[in-house]
Every structure is written in C-alpha cells, then in structure tokens.
C-alpha cells in the first residue's frame, strides 16, 4: 500500500469559530475510510478542505496527485431547473458547449451511469428523479472522469434503510472494482463496521483514527455521541 495523502494539524476557522482543530491522519491508496461524528463535528468541512474550497491552516500533503470525485451532502437544488442527467455530466466533463454531445461523450456518460444501473435516466431531467435515483446518478457523477479518490458526503441521506445498505454495498463493490480510495461521511455506525477499513472520528478535534473494531470502543462512542450511543455500535 502506498501513501496517498497526509493531513497534518488541519484547522479550519469559519468566521470566528474553529470548525476543525488540529486534525491529523494518513490515507493509503485503496483505503475505504468512514468519517463519523455528531452534527457540527466538521465532517463536511474536512471534505471541503481536501477539495480546497475552504481556507485552512496546517498541511494537506498529497503524495500522489489524484483526480478527485465529489458528491455533496443532501443535494438541494431547484427541482424545476431543466438540467438533464446528460447535461450534468457534460458540465463535469468541462465541455464548453452543451449544445451537442459527441457520440463518444454520450457513450462515456452511459458507461458511468451503468455503474449504478441508471443508464436509462440519461435523458431525464434531474428534477424528475426520485431521491434514490438522484443518489445513484450522483454516485455515477462522482465516478465520472475516472477519479482515483472519491469523497462522498453522507451518500445515503434521505434514503430508506433498505436502499441505504445497497448504496454502501454498491460503493464498496465499485471501490474494489476500480481500485479507488474513498472517504465516506456517514452517520450510520453499523454501516461503518460492515464496510469501512478505517474510521476517522471527529468532534471538531480528532477523536480517533484506525480500524473501526479497534478504535470504536463504547467509551469512545459515548464521548462522541453522548449516552446511549453504544446502542448503534453493535457488531455485525
């Protein structure tokens, strides 16, 4: 395993509030890492710092220069926006003109959509999709352009439990198939135990980092989430 990137002493201050403080961890190529923590713990901010969309102190050292795929949290948008799935992918491809995708572009988009089995939605408007379909389209969007590192922010927010497990299973299979490194923000501890190789626990500061079965002790969970949290921490 080779080192992909290192986060050293990362601190993010938004306004006058420290959203993240002195966070450090290392990520190896092929890692599937879950980022957990209570609301307001700085999980999304960590992903944004990795994307370079928030100013930060400390260092993020990239040992390789991976192409990054990103799927944001709870994707809110105007449902009447007439953008089609195909047009969304064309935007990402950097195509200056949306007027006419080439057959090659169309083919690539179809291939990306087939990863999550939604290729039939290529010509549909984003606003007409169900939340489950939208999630699958956005996972395919994250995979489009052959990324080496995937950042998923709560990929299952707004999806029912049955579908949730499918999405994580899907993510794991895709990560294995394409040899991707993945950082997944999640609330679901049971999912973390089942799918993640390592876990980063945040509570503004770094609470723990390592293999979930080792570092997610009942005491750790209680300090992260408060009393009663160990209820979710049962092993599968």
């Amino acid at each position: 395993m080779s080192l992909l990137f290192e986060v050293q002493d990362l601190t993010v201050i938004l306004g006058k509030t420290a959203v993240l403080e002195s966070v450090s961890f290392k990520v190896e190529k092929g890692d599937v890492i879950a980022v957990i923590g209570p609301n307001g713990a700085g999980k999304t901010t960590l992903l944004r710092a990795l994307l370079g969309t928030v100013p930060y102190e400390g260092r993020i050292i990239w040992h390789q220069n991976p192409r990054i795929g990103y799927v944001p949290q709870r994707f809110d948008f105007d449902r009447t926006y007439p953008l089609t799935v195909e047009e969304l992918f064309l935007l990402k491809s950097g195509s200056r003109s949306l007027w006419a995708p080439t057959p090659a572009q169309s083919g690539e988009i179809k291939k990306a959509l087939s990863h999550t089995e939604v290729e039939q939605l290529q010509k549909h408007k984003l606003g007409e999709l169900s939340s489950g379909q939208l999630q699958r389209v956005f996972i395919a969007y994250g995979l489009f352009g052959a990324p080496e590192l995937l950042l998923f922010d709560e990929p299952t927010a707004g999806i029912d439990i049955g579908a949730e497990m499918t999405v994580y299973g899907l993510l794991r299979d895709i990560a294995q198939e394409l040899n991707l490194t993945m950082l997944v923000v999640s609330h679901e501890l049971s999912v973390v135990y089942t799918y993640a190789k390592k876990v980063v626990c945040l509570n503004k500061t770094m609470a723990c980092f390592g293999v979930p079965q080792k570092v997610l002790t009942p005491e750790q969970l209680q300090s992260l989430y408060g009393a009663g949290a160990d209820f979710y921490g049962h092993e599968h």
Partner: protein
Amino acid sequence: MTGVSVGIGVSLLGTFVILRRMALVGDALSHVALPGMALAVTYKLNPFLGAVVFLFLAVIAITLIERHSVLPVDALVGVFFTAGLGVGALLSPSAESLLEALFGDIAKLHMVDAEIAVGAGLLVTIVTMLLFRDFAYLTLSPELAHSEGVPVQRTELIFMLLLAVIVAVGIKLVGTLLVGALIIIPASIAKNVTGSLRGMAFVSAVVGVVAVVGGSGIAGVFHLPPGPVVTTVAAGLFLVSLFVRRS
C-alpha cells in the same frame, strides 16, 4: 440588426436570470439607472453612458455588500432600486425626459446608440455562451461549481455585470419599465415548452428575437410605440406557451 442582437443577448442571459429566481432583479435593477440618466440629461451627455456608469457601480456595490452581509441579492437590489428611483425622480430635469427614459423609443435611436446596442448585445451573447458551463453549474449549486473549479465569486460578478449591460441597453430600446419583460418572458416561455437546459436557452433566444423584431415591425406598421408592442407580443407568446406546455 439592433433588435436581433439585443433580443438574443437579453433572452439568453434571461435563461439564467429565471433559473436563479432573480426574475424581478433585472426589472428592479433597471431603476438604478434613472439617477445616472437624469444626471446625463442635465449635463447634456448621452443618457446611455449615465445609465451604464450607475448600473455598474450599483452591481459592484451589491456584489461586494452581499459577500460581507447576511442579505440576499434581491434585498440589496431592492435597496438600490428604490433609492435609484427616488433620487432619479428628484434629479430628472423635466417630466418629458423622465417619461422617455422610462419608456424609451427604438424609433428615436441615434446611429451611435444603435451601434452601442448591437455591440453590447453581441458582447453579452458571446460572454454568456463562453461562460455557459460556469453559469449552469453556479445555478445548480455554488458548492458543486466550486468543487469543479468554477471561480464562483468572479462568475457571480460577471453575471451581474452582464445583467447591468443588458438592462442599460434595454433602457434605450424598450424603456426601463419594459426591459424586465424582455429578460423574463422569453426565458419563461422557453422553460414552459422545453425539457433540457440547452433547449431552454435556444428557445429563449429565438423567442427574444421574434418578440423584438415582430413587436417593432407591428409598431412600425400601426404607428404605435414599439416598447409596449414588444412586451404585448412577448406576453401573447407566453399565453400560447401555457397551452403547448410539455406534460
């Protein structure tokens, strides 16, 4: 020529104005031009120049204030628009010149004005086409746009500046009260009848041209003021679009 150039520019940009739910921002912004035009008339300068200067200053001020305050763009435009209208009314030298500023007249367009208008229409069309991807991303989600390398703040400022250019030109063509119609109606018609972003932008541009050229033509034949006729034609097309709406 003037009508075609401005019609395409206004309605193409109008696509994003409508999608970003800023329909009335363009309309309100047009009033900010009034004090500039009033001052220009007083000092015997081209009113277009006064309009452009005031609109640019207002847009830059609005964009800067928005970054550092909790107020949304439409509220800030509202502040500038009411202030512009009030100051403009106080500064206007006569009722007649104020009326002309408000309603415009394509028939009275001087050659230089016409050339400026054609140039501005082309400029807005070209920049909108070049930045189509950035505008489309920004409209969908500023966060997603940022993550894909779109310079969000700069794109936002360019968008507002283009809106200011279009509003200034629209003032000379159809008047401040009617420029809003040209921004809003073609894009709304296009949104009603199309199923993709590229379809919407294309139809909006076509409808914009049809409304301006058709409206001006009808006004010429029946000796009517072109501004209101252009708006009426556009509104008529909107009515039709409600019936051909995609299911």
